[in-house]
Each structure stands twice: as C-alpha cells, then as structure tokens.
C-alpha cells in the first residue's frame, strides 16, 4: 500500500508536469512510445491447467507485467451461430469419433500450387463416396495439406481450397453436403520431412477421416 501511494503521488506529479510543461518542458521529457501498450514483462509465470476435454474452451497463459501476473481463469464460450451453408454443424462433428486409419490408402495428391483434383486421383474419391453411400450414419472430414514451398497463411488457405475441391467432387458423386466437412493444416502437418519433390509430392495431399456416431463405435 505504501508503494501504491508513492506511485499515486508520482502519477499526480507526472500528470501535473506533463500538462504544465507543454510549452517548454516536453522536449526534455523522454517520450514513452506505446505506454498504453503492453509493458516490459517480468519473469515467466507457471502455466495454468488446460481447458475442457475436447478443447472448446480453456485458458492460455497471461503475459506478466512488472507488477506481476494475475490468476488465469477459464471462460466457457458459447459457440456462434451455425450458418454453415452446406457444411455440417460443428457440434455434430465435434461429438463424432474419428477413424484416421480407415481411408489411409485413399489419400489424394495435388500438383504444386494447384487445388484441383487430378483425374488420376478420382478413383480414391470414388472409393470413399461408395463407402459413405453404404454407411449412411457415417460422415467425413477432408483434411487439406501443402508442401513447405509457400508462405504460411497462403498455404493454409490453399490447403482449405484443396479440401473443398475434394468435397465438391464427393458432392457431385451424390454425397449429401451435410456429411462432409473440410479442414486445412497448410504446411504445418507434413507427412514427410524431406526437402525435395519426393517429400513435397507426398505432402500436397487431401486425407479422408471417417467420422462415426459415438454409439456405433465400441
């Protein structure tokens, strides 16, 4: 408290001197660029526990200030509206069980910097469509990926465009729009770590993730 009153006095002095000193004094007062911005930080504080089980909420870590950090807290967020224009409601998808193995052999690959599905890849899409037709309770996530050549957010959008191209093909094969969602990881989840065309060609891909209702798995 003692230091607080000291600070308060200083604040008062500061305000007085800055308002009184406009005419002649300000040149010699060191300007503090961005003092309304985050101040110089103190030591790293311990992190806080992660949020809910499926991660729809939860806390990050605070950025400490000179006066020390404060206690992190969870905010339980309510999802926004679900105007999805064809894509499935997130709540439905988030509640389903993902099988990443089922369509592992059906991954489709793309040309460099292209998002259209090559004719050579159509067979894999057909296989996936046929399976979905035989299993009406199943849904699907298509994950788009890129090679490392390209800037990060550009690749994130390109990966999404690739996933959407695959989805469009599935829809043209008769799969209902509300059964297929898309995701993009850009260049963040390569399947191969090399830096040549052999690796890049495998990383420019669309993966199929089978989604099943919880009741049907067990």
């Amino acid at each position, binding site marked *: 408290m003692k230091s607080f009153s000291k600070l308060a006095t200083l604040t008062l002095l500061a305000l007085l001197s800055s308002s009184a000193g406009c005419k002649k004094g300000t040149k010699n007062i060191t300007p503090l*660029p961005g003092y309304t911005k985050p101040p110089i930080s103190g030591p790293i504080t311990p992190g806080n526990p992660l949020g809910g089980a499926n991660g729809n909420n939860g806390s990050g870590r605070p950025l400490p200030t000179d*006066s020390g950090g404060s206690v992190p807290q969870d905010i339980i967020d309510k999802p926004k509206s679900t105007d999805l224009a064809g894509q499935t409601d997130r709540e439905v998808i988030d509640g389903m069980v993902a099988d990443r193995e089922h369509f592992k052999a059906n991954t489709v690959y793309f040309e460099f910097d292209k998002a259209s599905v090559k004719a050579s890849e159509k067979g894999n899409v057909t296989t996936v469509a046929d399976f979905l037709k035989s299993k009406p309770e199943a849904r699907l996530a298509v994950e788009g990926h890129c090679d490392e050549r390209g800037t990060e957010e550009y690749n994130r959008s390109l990966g999404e465009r690739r996933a959407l191209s695959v989805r469009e093909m599935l829809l043209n094969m008769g799969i209902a729009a509300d059964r297929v969602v898309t995701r993009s990881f850009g260049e963040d989840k390569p399947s191969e770590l090399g830096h040549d065309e052999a690796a890049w060609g495998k990383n420019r891909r669309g993966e199929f993730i089978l989604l099943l209702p919880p009741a049907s798995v067990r």
Partner: protein
Amino acid sequence: MNFPLKFFASLALTFSLQAAPQVNVTDTTSRSIPISLTGFSGETRKVLEFDLFVAGFDLVDVSQAQYDLNGRVEGKTEGTLSDTANKASLFNRAYPGGTTRTQAHALADDVVQAITGRKGLRGTKIVFKVQRARTSEIYACDFDGSNPVQLTSDNNIVAAPAWKSGSRSIYYTSYRAGNADIYQQDLNTGARTAIVRFSGSNISPSPSADGSKLAMILSKAGSPDLWISDSSGGSLKRLTSTPADESSPCWSPDGSTLCVVSRESGYPLLYTIPASGGTLRKLTTGNVRNTTEPDWSPDGKWIAFTRQRGETFDICIVSATGGDAKVITEGEDPSWSPNSRTLIFTRRTGKYGSKHLSLLDWPTGHVKDSSRVDGSSSQPSWSR
C-alpha cells in the same frame, strides 16, 4: 492501471536543459547516420548498438562519426549526445530507475528522436509463433527478442497471432479443438475465448487499427473468402465470394480498405477492397510477382509484403496506392512497427532450415536478428 513502472521511472528523469535540436524529419532517407559510442560497455553498449542500428544508424569510430554518444553507467545511465562537427551538445540526460536494459533503451530512443524526429521502439512487443517438432505455441517478447514469454501450452498447432491495437489482447488460430478456430486471449489474465468456430477453416485474424473490427478468412460459405466482423467475431459480413482462395488480410490504418491475397488469377496477388463492400482491385507491384502476406504501414503510405521467387522469399515494399515495388531483403511475413519504418520479419537458416525473427530498417536495408528462442519462430506481429 497497467502503467509499467518504467513509465514513472522515465518521468523521474533528471536532465540539464540544452538548446532544442532542429529536427528534420526525413522518414525514408536511405542514408545511414554515422554515430560513435564512447564510454559505454557491456549490456548497455549492446542494447545501444542494436537499437541504433535498427533505427538506421551506422556504428563507427568517433573520427568518422557525425554524432557522438558519450556516457557511463553507475546505477543510473547517463548520456550526452553531441554533433561532432560543431561539438554542439544535443542533450545531456540521466536515466535512473528500471533496469540497465530499460535505461539503455530509453537513451537509444532519445538519440533517435533527437536526430531523426522519429519515435523509438522501446516498450513495444512482438507476438509470434514458435514451432518445435510437430507442435507450435504462441509467444510474446520485447521488440528486440528479449524477455520471451510463452502464452499457450496446448501441444497442438497455432498460427497467425495478431495484436489487437493498443490493448493487452491478441487473436490467433488454434487447432486445439480439432479444427482451425479463431481465439481471442486476454494477456492480463490468460483467459481466452474461441470467437469464430464454424465448420471449415477459421483463420488469419487481423484486427483493424482502432481495434473495433476483425478481418479473417472463413470457408464456411464454400470457399476461403474474406470476412469482417466486430472485435469479438459478431456481425459477420462477407467481403469476397471468389471460387479461388483468399488469404492474409490486413487493414488500412483508417479502416476504410483491406488488402488481401487472392489466387483468383491462378497465382497469388495482392488486392484491395473497400471495407464497406465492393470488388477486388489488383494492387500493382511492377515486376514483382507471387505476392503474399501484406501489412499496411501505420502511417498509411506503404504496404510491405512477401514475394516468392522459386524457392526463395523476399520482403518487398510498395506504395499503398500501388506502383513499382522495391525488393528489400530475403525473408517472409513482414510486420510494421508503430513508427512505420522498422519492420520485423521471418528469416530462414539455410534454404529449409528453422526460422527466426529479424528486424529491418527498410530505407537503409539494415537487418539485425532478434534474440532467439528454441525452435522455429515465425509469423511476428508488432504491438501498435
């Protein structure tokens, strides 16, 4: 009341009054200013050298210097700036309080202000992404890379952190819920909210300069398009509806216009579009092609961006109204400092090595790496 202590420390400065220097503001002069440092050593010298170099100064011997900064550190830092030609003293100041580092930053900023009329960078922050193995987290640090603080610990993938102007709040993309969703995080408490989480990609959040709006890329309508909302993801409005993918939006400082990348022509190009709605208009960049990652300077005059040529990336600058872009240096993803002159960007170690952050004074081409953290650092965003 989040005033940093150094705010008070700076106001408690002691100084002796000297004639005010004639300030000549030549913001984009490409000539570096030769300055010598005498009497300083250790950490203070390092901080002064770093800050002055990235402000467009060349550190030289006193015999070649146009200005000399002489001083010492004994508890407080003292500095006298003089013009070497006429021996005139520009200021003589002492910096008590804070740490040796913050004192040195304050002195460096005063030198920059006295000679160039520009504001220095002290107290500004960077938020960025750090990737290790297959996961990434959001970090913040001082503008020179010191004092790094980890802001997430999800062991998942994050992307595109962006500072909400003038606040202790950031936006970023996280995949922690299995999908690319946009989060807003309060840096005082660490509390965060998933503010945009539709099916499909919710990515590349970019707040307007006044903090009232957010631009982003959403694919919920069937293609990765440019959308804007209020600061918490509400009142969404779709601005583009191309079948191609858009990416990396940013705002003009007055909030009237956005610059965004579109692949509408089959390859990445910069476009502008009114925030009130309208059509995409190509931003001309001369012979510079394959352009991504625009960032609009806070003074409204320039757009910095990345161009890709084969497997190399370069930082480029073009007038905000378009024209012949200048290729400045190799690197990616530039972000402007509040003074519209210094930029932070990503550099690679070797062709496909890990990335790290570096500062650029674009008119002089001065480039200096920030302090590093373990892992690959990218996607810096400057607080402003």
